[in-house]
């Protein structure tokens, strides 16, 4: 019983930590520009495919291909995020937020179809972070991969936290997210802060894609599912609360896995959404309360 639970928790945390990175990036964009980035799930998928593509360039038999490629994937997807801002957000700055929904939906579709045409529609395996191998914990066999996924996600979250709270640029990002006009009144160039936020979100999405691509494969049509997880996590955690969304994403994964193991996947899904509905009715500001911001 214990070992089964440990086994389940390990898988849940591995999956959930990737979802947490996704939710984190998603909320950063919401905070920065007040609009929902519907291409976010497709950015995760794209990150997975970038990892797959880059792994084809590496020589065979390299020990930790995923870790080696992580910086390159983060960088590529950061550029991708900034490009998304330039294409789907910047031209529609002065339009109502709903225009950005539509433009990001469009970009997401374009990304999905382009990757499907370029790489083919079938699922692909990404590079593994560390080698295969199992470690025994309380009788359960946990793979190095799972533990590495959790560790890498934790490191990335820590990096984001440090950036936002201990660097001047991070403070500028937060200020610009809270009151764009007053940030400008402090001499901050919003084009830079918004571009940087999209780049950061893109990098986090790419990282999540890499982490998921080995254990769980990546298919061009995966975007919608990642998007949904991020959105639900954001609603549960409290609209605009970045760490609330990340924690909520972890909780969603753990909840789903435990209920699915106890009853069934369908029940787990149903209960999750019933729970979200109940939360919206009883505590609409989310578990951790709504941060200042505009709901999109």
């Amino acid at each position, binding site marked *: 019983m214990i070992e*089964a639970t440990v*086994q*389940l928790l390990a*898988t*849940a945390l591995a*999956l959930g930590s990737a979802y947490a990175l996704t939710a984190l990036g998603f909320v950063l964009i919401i905070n920065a520009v007040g609009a929902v980035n519907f291409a976010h799930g497709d950015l995760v998928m794209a990150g997975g495919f970038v990892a797959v593509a880059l792994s084809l360039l590496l020589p065979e038999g390299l020990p930790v291909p995923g870790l080696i490629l992580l910086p390159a994937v983060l960088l590529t997807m950061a550029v991708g995020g900034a490009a998304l801002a330039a294409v789907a957000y910047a031209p529609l700055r002065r339009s109502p937020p709903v225009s950005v929904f539509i433009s990001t939906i469009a970009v997401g579709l374009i990304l999905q*179809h382009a990757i*499907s*045409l370029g790489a*083919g*529609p*079938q*699922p*692909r*395996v990404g590079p593994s972070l560390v080698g295969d191998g199992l470690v025994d914990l309380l009788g359960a*066999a946990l*793979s190095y991969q799972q533990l590495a996924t959790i560790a890498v996600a934790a490191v990335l979250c820590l990096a984001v936290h440090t950036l936002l709270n201990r660097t001047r640029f991070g403070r500028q990002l937060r200020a610009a997210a809270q009151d764009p006009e007053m940030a400008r009144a402090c001499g901050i160039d919003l084009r830079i802060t918004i571009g940087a936020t999209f780049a950061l979100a893109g990098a986090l999405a790419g990282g999540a894609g890499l982490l*998921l691509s080995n*254990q*769980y*494969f990546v*298919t061009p*049509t*995966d975007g*919608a*599912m990642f998007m949904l997880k991020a959105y639900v996590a954001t609603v549960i955690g409290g609209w605009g609360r970045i760490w609330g969304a990340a924690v909520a994403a972890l909780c969603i994964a753990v909840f789903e*896995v*435990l209920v*699915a*193991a106890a009853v*069934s*996947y*369908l029940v*787990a*899904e149903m209960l999750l959404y019933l729970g979200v509905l109940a939360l919206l009715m009883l505590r609409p500001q989310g578990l951790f309360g709504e941060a200042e911001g505009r709901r999109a």
Partner: protein
Amino acid sequence: MHMTITRSLMTLSAAVALAIGMPATAQADDPLAVSVLVPITGFLALEGTAQRNGAVMALDNPPEGVRVTYDVADTATSPEVAVTALRRALDRQKPVAIAAPIFGTQMLAMAPIADRADVPLITVSGTAKLTELGHDIVFRFFPTDAVVKVAQARYAVQDLGMKRPAILFQTTAYGQSGRTELVRVLGDLGVAPVLEEAIDPGIKDFVPALERAAAAGADGLLLQLHSGPTALAVRQAHERGFEGPIVAGSALHQPTTAALVEPAALAGVCAESASSPVSDSGAEMAAFAEAYRQRFEAEPDAFALAQYDGMNMVLAALAAGARTAEAVKIWLAGNRFQGLAMEYVSDGTGNMAHDAIILCYDGLTRTPVVRKRYDNVDGVR
């Protein structure tokens, strides 16, 4: 007014003369048209591309004396797009036969229209309803669940000795209808599944399902999942040390699915299929596979081969003298055809394929071996 009527009459008589004259000027060896309408983009792009490739390989090599032209169009993901493509093809190409999408929902939308035009649809779709609607123009060259699920269940129980199987099936129409058939066949064999778990296509974590299967005392797994989920289930079962055989659906025969799993994790895992072109099954099959690889830089699968066989049967109809869509349809309905994968003959409603195979992986390579053939499963041949 008087002048206008005269002119109209003259135009009319000229047109009539032309119309009468037309068939006379049409040569008996004018090329006939075939349309290939399959999903090249979207979530069935893999299977649709395989269909396209198989059809094109056949159409590019017609028998002596037969000349065909063909057009390929993408039906993408929705019935609307498929219907538009069909209408356009009927209008412009006036085909004598159409290679039609594997996607059941699109087929259901296209069938009535093709019926009115009396043009046969050559498909590999497994959706049972297609041949139950009273249209006589659907010709299905891939065995239905009534055939392949029988093979899957029988092999699991009779050859692998499964007594307490757990069934993991997709929540889609494909998964649901397959599960129904599996349960029925298992019942006929005196076996009851200990678990039947519905899996959404988006689910990536199979550990809960595996835990519940283990808790229910399952001694084997029967999978009715799409490509990615099949690979995930097989891999995670291996990682968790699930003891017991696994017999998967036809998704696992596809080389692209096997490519996702390490060979060691495939040891002892079997799958049902109509055929396995990449497996060693004789010189002709090997030649087909090699030609396919050269041309498309991809491995052929059973869907490609089934479509290839189906289009070849159409070409055989043309070689036998059929020159209209209706004639092709009648020939397909009334004749046998020995294709590469199997012999095809209609059961009266358009189901042409009645054989299945079980293939298994040896744990060393990703190329499966054909372990057993189930011929004439539904007694039609």
